[in-house]
Each structure stands twice: as structure tokens, then as C-alpha cells.
């Protein structure tokens, strides 16, 4: 028997954005990757693992995929994280694999020479070698290897070619003895280049003169290397295909038409196509709940499992179709290179509001649901623009507001009426959507003025050539986003929904206990219509006597100026789980025949009288409620996702406070003016 020795190594992948680094990471590790956090920042930390054996020795390689960077002088928070992690002693990185785009070696060699000067074990991976070959770029690998003093391997990570060579090179990685910096540039201030870089990153006191002269010195050497070892046919313009596609995608008319079409598609998928799988998920969980509640002994535990836990998990899994579809699109748009073009034509429109060209997709998908949209802001690399986009997204009218709007508009205009040619109900709905959109833009504009940032807002970015999307990359993206959501946002959503369930189904006083006993004895009998009606009444009374019922009464003085009573108060609290719960709770409170059908509740609300016998749901109350739901946070899933994406509760509470004040003030204004 051969005794396999297992050797462990930790490597870091580093390279420019668009060097195919992520694609290499995905190819190497497959699904053996996990997403973690870097302390104190919003950037995700990607780690993975792969194993192989050579000469009867097995090797396990841990890989950390560092964010893309152009040089060791960080210009963005992504770059700063990449540099700091690389230089962190505690990370214990054995080998750095620098990933370069073989078609533009010159630019990519800047970072490579800097890493070599850090005197870390390094391997150079020339990615996309197939593209370089097809462009008749000929690289003298041996020559490059000798001059750089490290192993250079050619890769085509899309087709997994050259991986064996890469693995061997990683095992044999060495520290180069070549030096690419100008020693006289630093006088005697620093012992090594590494020390210089560390002091630059942590104290940020280096003048850009020293920084620039370091880069120019390197480029001088690189120019010489490229002239000597790389034969490139003279290329003065873009690849023909890319330039032909761009003629449409960046055209002043077609460009926007294409973008609108893509946004329309995204919207369709998230709004309508997701509906079917979401219904399947809902009925599957309902079925499971029914099964457990009938097949297992009744009692508090059964109740907790069915109405607390299963309902909570169902509420989490429900988002999966929307998240999957949205990231399928984002994956396609990023992988092909289109996203950069969308950014290019939208930058001037979005910039006055402190938003990014890439904010367009989250904003449009936000009309379906803020939850996947907030996850989608990940592609915005500027921290300030990303935070602003996350902050304002819940103001966009999402699909969960629709049932609330529909019910209240129906109460407001019970009969179909027309304003000129237009259906009044439709106009009110349109107005509410526009209101959400205007509030979104104004808030963004205000935030842009008050938010401070140390990170400069650049638009200096690469427009990558168009490439075919890779199903593996997109598959892993969709999979990892879904998993992250379920694991991290899911636990918060589950916890809040269990708390809400507990509060609405428990009470401490005697009345509640009596109602409980009465309900149980009634439900165990044969259920006639009369008994069913009585059970319904008891359910309503139970809700009134529950903790949430108390809370509804408790907040009544606060919401009275808005025209709301404790019944609305109860609905406000339960619909904190999700806005559409408002309709269901109102149905329970008003003992509507059918909680799915808003027609029944509409009649109940129209018949509701206040203490003086006047109509309760006046236009003033309806408008006040409509505006409240337009602006209030009222969505625990959004809060859970914001927490997960910003890695802190700070923004979550700021957002909650801001939206609550906005909702309260506008509802107050509407009620006071109209009544």
C-alpha cells in the first residue's frame, strides 16, 4: 500500500479585473467554494479548495480569490482589500498566482512586477492564451520566464487547458531574484519594496509623484520586455465584432432601445415568470404544514413548527425564483460584457443623483422586489454609489405593495369611474408608482450631498470585448447568491417571522386562554356553516386579545394623527413581515368571508363606522394609508438583506428611521389636509 502524503498549500489569485480570474477560480474549485467576510468592509471574501495528486503525493490547495486590482496602490475599496489581504501575515499565503490577460500583457504586467518585488513565491498565469493565439500574438514563454525569474504558464481557463502545468508550477513556486523597482527612487527610507508598499497602503502618505515614478519606471522595463518577448500584430482599433455590436449598444437611439428591452425582459421574469415557481413553493410548504398539523399530535410544538417555522422558511424560499432569475440575467450581462455598455450610456443620466450607470438594473428590478435587487447592487464597485442605491431601493414601488394599493384604491373609488378618458383607479395607481420613483431620485440626490467618502468616484474603466457567456460561471453565481440569501438573510427573516407568529397567537390574559379552549372544542366537532362562522369570530377576538392586539392598542395614540385606529395598528405590525400581509390581517380583523379576495374586505371596510357613526374609511384615511405604505419600510426581508449586504445594522436602522419619518409625515399631511 502506498502511503499518500497529504500536502496543504494556500494560494491567492490576484489579477486585474477582466483577467478571467473569477473564471479560473470557478474552474479550479467548482462548487467547493464559500463566501465569507472581510472584517469591516462590504466586499465578499471568496475562498475555495481543490485537490489533486502528482507522483503518489496528494495535494490540497486552498484558494483565496482576491478582488480585482490594477496595482498595489489601491484606488478603490476592492483594491485596498486585495492589497491588505495579500500583505497580511496572518493569512499565511504560500503562493500568489497572478492572472494576466495574454492579449494585453503590457498593462497586466504592471501588477505582476510589483508582486515579484514583494518577494513572495509567485506564479504567472497567462490566461486567455487561445484568444492571444487567434490574434496572432506570439509570446516567448521561456524568455519571459528567465527574465521574470518565476514560472510562467499558459492557460485557457474557459476550457480548463493548462491546469496540470499550473498545478506543477504552484508546487514548485519560487521567489524571483529579479528586481523591477528603481532603488534610488526611495533613497534610504525603505529597506524593501514590500515595506514601501505597506507604508503606502496603511499611512497613505506617499506622494503621487513617487507612486507615478514607480509605475513609469516599471512600464519602461515592461515596454522593453514586451518588445523582446511578445510579437503583437499592429492593432490600432477594436476587434471588428465588438465594434459592430457596440455600434448598436452605444447608439443614441438603438442603445437605449436595447437597454429598455433588456430591462423589460428582466422585469417580466421577476414580476411574472417567477410567479409560477413562487406559487409552487408556497403550496408545497402549505401542503407540508397541513401534513404535519394533521398527522402529528396537536399542541404548542405542532403550532410552532407549522405556523412559525415552516411558514417562516416558506417566506425565505419564496424569494429564490426571483433571485435566481435576476442573477441569471446579471450573470449574462456581466459575462458577455454588456453591463459595461449599459453603464457607459447611462452614466450621465444617473450621476447627478449619486447613482451609477449600473444602478439601472437594480432600480428596475426593484419594481418587482427590493430583495433580489439589493443583492444585485454588488456589481457597483464604488462604495458610495452602491450604498446610495441600496438605501433608496425600498422606496421603489414593489409588487408587495400592489395588493395593499389595490384594496385601498377600491375603497377609495368603489365604482369604476373615469377622469376624462382615464380610469381613475388606474390613475391613482400610476400616481403611486411615480411617487415612489420621484421619492427614490430625490432621496438619492439628498444622500449624494450628505454622504462623505474618501474613495474618489472614477469612471475610468475597461470596456471589455464581447465574449460568449460561460454557463459554469453563471451557474455558480446564481447558486452562490441563492445560498448566501438563504443562509444569511434567511435566518433573520425566519427569526422575525417566528416572533411575529408568537405575538399574534399568544396572549397572557384570561380572555385569550378562554377563547383558545372554546376554539379547540369547536374545531374538534363536525363543522357546520354556523360553527365555521363562530370559529372565525373567535379568531378575530383572539387576534384582538393577543400580544399584537395589545401592541395595536398601545400604538394607537401615535398613529391617531394619521387617521389610523388600533385595528389598522394591528395590521401595520403584522405587515412588518411583508406589506401584502396587511390585506390578510384586515381580512381576519373584519371577518371577511374570503381572505384571498379583496372584494369581501372592501365591502367590510366601506361599511365600517367610527365612534360617531360616520364612515371610517374616508378618502383622508385611505390616502393616509396609501402614502404610508408607499414610503414605510414594512419589509423584514429587505432589512435582512441590507444587513447582509452592508455587513452592519447601521444602514438598516438609518433606512428604517428615514422611511418611517417620511411615511409618517406624508400620511399625517395627507390626513390633516383631506379631513
Amino acid at each position, binding site marked *: 500500500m502506498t502511503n499518500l502524503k497529504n500536502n496543504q498549500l494556500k494560494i491567492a489569485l490576484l489579477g486585474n479585473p477582466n483577467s478571467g480570474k473569477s473564471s479560473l477560480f470557478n474552474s479550479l474549485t467548482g462548487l467547493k467554494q464559500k463566501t465569507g467576510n472581510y472584517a469591516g468592509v462590504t466586499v465578499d471574501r471568496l475562498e475555495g479548495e481543490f485537490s489533486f495528486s502528482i507522483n503518489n503525493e496528494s495535494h490540497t490547495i486552498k484558494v483565496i480569490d482576491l478582488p480585482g486590482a*490594477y*496595482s498595489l*496602490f489601491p*484606488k478603490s475599496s476592492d483594491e485596498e482589500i486585495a492589497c491588505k489581504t495579500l500583505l497580511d501575515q496572518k493569512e499565511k499565503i504560500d503562493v500568489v498566482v497572478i492572472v494576466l490577460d495574454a*492579449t*494585453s500583457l*503590457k*498593462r497586466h504586467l*504592471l501588477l505582476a512586477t510589483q508582486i515579484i518585488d514583494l518577494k513572495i513565491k509567485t506564479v504567472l498565469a497567462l490566461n486567455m492564451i487561445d484568444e492571444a493565439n487567434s490574434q496572432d500574438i506570439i509570446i516567448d514563454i521561456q524568455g519571459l520566464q528567465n527574465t521574470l525569474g518565476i514560472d510562467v504558464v499558459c492557460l485557457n481557463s474557459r476550457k480548463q487547458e493548462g491546469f496540470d502545468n499550473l498545478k506543477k508550477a504552484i508546487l514548485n513556486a519560487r521567489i524571483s531574484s529579479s528586481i523591477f523597482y528603481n532603488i534610488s527612487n526611495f533613497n534610504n527610507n525603505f529597506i524593501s519594496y514590500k515595506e514601501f508598499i505597506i507604508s503606502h497602503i496603511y499611512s497613505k502618505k506617499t506622494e*503621487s*509623484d513617487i*507612486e*507615478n515614478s514607480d*509605475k*513609469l519606471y516599471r*512600464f519602461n522595463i515592461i515596454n522593453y520586455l514586451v518588445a523582446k518577448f511578445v510579437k*503583437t500584430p499592429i*492593432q*490600432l*482599433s*477594436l476587434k471588428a465584432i*465588438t*465594434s459592430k455590436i*457596440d455600434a448598436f449598444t*452605444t*447608439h*443614441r437611439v438603438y*442603445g*437605449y432601445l436595447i437597454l429598455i428591452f433588456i430591462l423589460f425582459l428582466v422585469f417580466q421574469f421577476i414580476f411574472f415568470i417567477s410567479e409560477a415557481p413562487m406559487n409552487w413553493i408556497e403550496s408545497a410548504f402549505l401542503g407540508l404544514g397541513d401534513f404535519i398539523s394533521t398527522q402529528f399530535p396537536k399542541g404548542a410544538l405542532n403550532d410552532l413548527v407549522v405556523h412559525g417555522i415552516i411558514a417562516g422558511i416558506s417566506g425565505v424560499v419564496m424569494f429564490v425564483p426571483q433571485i435566481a432569475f435576476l442573477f441569471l440575467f446579471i450573470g449574462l450581462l456581466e459575462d458577455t460584457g454588456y453591463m*459595461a455598455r449599459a453603464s*457607459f*450610456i447611462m*452614466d*450621465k*443620466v444617473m450621476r447627478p443623483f449619486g447613482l451609477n450607470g449600473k444602478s439601472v438594473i437594480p432600480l428596475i428590478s426593484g419594481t418587482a422586489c427590493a430583495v433580489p435587487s439589493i443583492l444585485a447592487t454588488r456589481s457597483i464597485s464604488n462604495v458610495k454609489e452602491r450604498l446610495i442605491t441600496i438605501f433608496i431601493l425600498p422606496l421603489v414601488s414593489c409588487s408587495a405593495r400592489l395588493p395593499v394599493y389595490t384594496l385601498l384604491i377600491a375603497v377609495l373609488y368603489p365604482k369604476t369611474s373615469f377622469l376624462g378618458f382615464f380610469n381613475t383607479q388606474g390613475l391613482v395607481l400610476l400616481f403611486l408608482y411615480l411617487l415612489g420613483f420621484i421619492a427614490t431620485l430625490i432621496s438619492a440626490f439628498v444622500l449624494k450631498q450628505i454622504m462623505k467618502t474618501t474613495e*474618489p468616484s*472614477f*469612471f*475610468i*474603466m*475597461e*470596456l*471589455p*470585448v464581447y465574449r460568449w457567456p460561460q454557463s459554469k460561471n453563471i451557474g455558480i453565481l446564481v447558486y452562490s447568491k441563492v445560498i448566501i440569501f438563504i443562509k444569511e438573510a434567511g435566518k433573520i427573516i425566519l427569526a422575525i417571522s417566528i416572533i411575529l407568529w408568537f405575538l399574534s397567537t399568544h396572549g397572557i390574559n384570561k380572555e385569550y386562554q378562554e377563547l383558545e379552549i372554546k376554539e379547540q372544542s369547536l374545531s374538534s366537532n363536525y363543522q357546520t356553516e354556523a360553527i365555521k362562522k363562530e370559529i372565525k369570530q373567535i379568531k378575530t377576538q383572539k387576534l384582538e386579545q393577543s400580544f399584537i392586539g395589545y401592541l395595536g392598542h398601545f400604538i394607537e395614540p401615535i398613529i391617531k394623527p394619521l387617521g389610523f385606529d388600533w385595528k389598522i395598528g394591528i395590521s401595520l405590525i403584522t405587515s412588518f413581515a411583508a406589506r401584502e400581509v396587511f390585506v390578510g390581517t384586515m381580512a381576519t380583523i373584519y371577518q371577511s368571508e374570503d381572505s384571498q379576495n379583496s372584494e369581501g374586505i372592501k365591502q367590510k371596510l366601506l361599511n365600517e363606522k367610527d365612534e360617531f357613526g360616520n364612515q371610517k374609511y374616508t378618502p383622508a384615511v385611505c390616502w393616509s394609508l396609501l402614502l404610508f405604505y408607499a414610503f414605510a419600510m414594512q419589509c423584514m426581508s429587505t432589512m435582512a438583506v441590507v444587513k447582509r449586504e452592508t455587513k452592519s445594522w447601521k444602514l438598516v436602522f438609518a433606512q428604517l428611521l428615514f422611511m418611517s419619518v417620511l411615511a409618517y409625515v406624508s400620511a399625517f399631511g395627507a390626513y390633516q389636509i383631506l379631513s
Partner: protein
Amino acid sequence: MKTQSLAKLKKGQKAVIKSFTNKTLSSKLIEMGCLPGETFVITKIAPLGSPIAIFIAGYELSLRKDEADSVLVELIL
């Protein structure tokens, strides 16, 4: 030949980078391959006038008009 700002060039015009007027921007531009002496072509101007795109050092780079304004170039006829 006199130098002028990159932002003033029209689509299709070819020029050489001479110098920069903003240090922060220059250090970013240099690492993106915009070195003094490098030749480039204006490939795109966004429909609303900004950003613009140039083909330089074998790839296409986009930058905002006010960022381009900090680059002094010499036109090649």
C-alpha cells in the same frame, strides 16, 4: 504641434498623450495604460456627450469627459 485637452477631441481622431493636469487622476490613468507617449484613437462618445471611450494599449477604456479634460494630448493628423 500644440497640446489640447483630450475632452475636446472628436470621434475617430487620433492623438498622443503628452501630460496630465491632475495628480490623482493621472496615477489611475497611468496604471490603466495611459502613458505619456502612448497613441490612441477616440472610439466612442456616449449619446449624452460623456463618458467617452478611447482605444489605447490594445484595449478600450472609458472615462468621463471631466476626467478626460485632465489629459493633455497632441493630435496626429
